[in-house]
């Protein structure tokens, strides 16, 4: 049935058992993003560390209230970006953005997006795309701030 194309098991699993949830120290930047139409909110922290080829996403922690889609996509995001170089993680973010803008017609690259390919079905529901992107936009914002602010903390 139609619902199952949106609510893939992967999504429901991440929703019920979110990864990396909760706010942690230390962090370089913290942001608070809201979805103005529905009031969903996420507070997200990013910790970067120095790597051989530039900064690396050392940790992403978050807390927030939101629907299954926004909660699950933030959980999936943390799995994907923690441990990656910032440049590489930003490319994953770009790829996810492209998938979300594909109106259901995208052919996601599983090697890049891993569990996040489960959100392909969500891209057919314009009202839910913002939910799927809430955590990803917050992460991009926080990471940019952390990178600009240097690795101070």
């Amino acid at each position, binding site marked *: 049935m*139609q619902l199952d194309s949106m609510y893939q098991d992967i999504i429901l699993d991440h929703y019920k058992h979110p990864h990396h949830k909760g706010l942690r120290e230390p962090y370089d930047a913290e942001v608070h993003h809201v979805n103005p139409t*529905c009031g969903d909110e996420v507070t997200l922290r990013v910790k970067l560390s120095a790597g051989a080829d530039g900064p690396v996403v050392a940790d992403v922690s978050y807390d927030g209230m939101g629907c299954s889609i926004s909660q699950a996509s933030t959980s999936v995001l943390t799995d994907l970006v923690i441990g990656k170089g910032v440049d590489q993680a930003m490319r994953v973010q770009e790829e996810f953005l492209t998938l979300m803008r594909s109106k259901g017609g995208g052919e996601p690259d599983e090697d890049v997006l891993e569990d996040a390919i489960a959100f392909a079905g969500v891209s057919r*529901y314009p009202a839910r795309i913002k939910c799927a992107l809430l955590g990803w936009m917050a992460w991009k914002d926080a990471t940019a701030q952390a990178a600009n602010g240097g690795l101070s903390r």
Partner: protein
Amino acid sequence: MTFDRAGFDVALVRKDFPILDRTVRDGRPLVYLDSANTSQKPRQVIDAMSDYYEQHNANIHRATHQLGEEATEAYEGARITAAGFLGARDETEVVFTKNISEAINLVAYSMGNASTSGGAAERFRLGPGDEIVITEMEHHSNIVPWQLLCERTGATLRWFGVTDDGRLDLSGIDGLINARTKLVSLVHQSNVLGTVNPVRLVADAAHAVGALVLVDAAQSVPHLPVSVADLGADFVGFTAHKICGPTGIGVLWARRELLDAMPPFLGGGEMIESVAMTGSTFAQPPHKFEAGTMPIAEAVGLDAALRYVSEVGLDAIRAHEHELLTHALDGLAALDGVRILGPTDAADRGATIAFLVDDVHPHDVSQVLDAHGIAVRAGHHCARPLHLRFGVPASTRASFYLYNTTDEVDALIRGIDEAKRYFA
């Protein structure tokens, strides 16, 4: 409570709404429970607007030809219909706006303009020490214009609270409405809680201290008989698209002597008496407040909508909705883990029900319902302070109108039950 519903037949009503015949989400019949957001439109309204464009289209008040006369008559005819509908003294008390948001902004900006001009506008002047009172259950349209006005003038915004069961908390009314109060603005029927407020009581208290009263009637005018005289208000606004009419037009009713004294809001064509390089004088109300080419076809649509609703009968509509409401409240009460935001008894309450389902986010509830063709709204419904009051970011809202049926209520209840199981 029983209301007279003589001759009302929902099956016949439904035939007037072409959209109710369509299917959604792979062939499911549309169950439209989002009328508090915007109502569907009957054939009578759609036809009136097409006929206007096909036969009478011209600009109003300024065209010196037959079509111009016909268009002007149609537009001004809508004003007469609206005045009659609200029980206004006459049609010069009816100002057309884009929607109720603009109607409220018109009053707020006019009061702001009064604060920097003299003369008759003096009575609308606001400054530090003055107070505007609203309520915690307002739509953002009846919050933000006042916040902005208070920022511009230094006046203070004060709020009526809401009780746990979703009624206006009147316990502090004597302190809240006082000699410093310049304006009290409140919603007649809440777009979230469904609560119908005792507007008359609040209006009398406001008038006793010389304050003005604005009533946001966006959610009441479509559903119950509203007379501006009975409300005891100075300003009443509503929006056409929630009463079977088109988007793009709203109504501000105000007592004529207030419209006479208020400074204009928007400047432009048609709102003037005379324009010179040294300054301008303004037309008489209501034209003083209608700058530029107005939504003419939309006025025609509004006229048709008000006639349509009157013909069906607001008493009958209220009675029908009351039946849907009690059926829905019973059905929801029988579901475990469902909490209603707002009164759980049907007294002084309209057929708009916001609810929470334990452990299922409102977005997810509405998504499951949508998969069954059931259209509801999820979010804060432009009433964020109210949701914060109840400690939640969002709710799911089902809202009923004259074309809904008890079968559709049952579909809603089944859908909510399925959402619970899906996310269990």
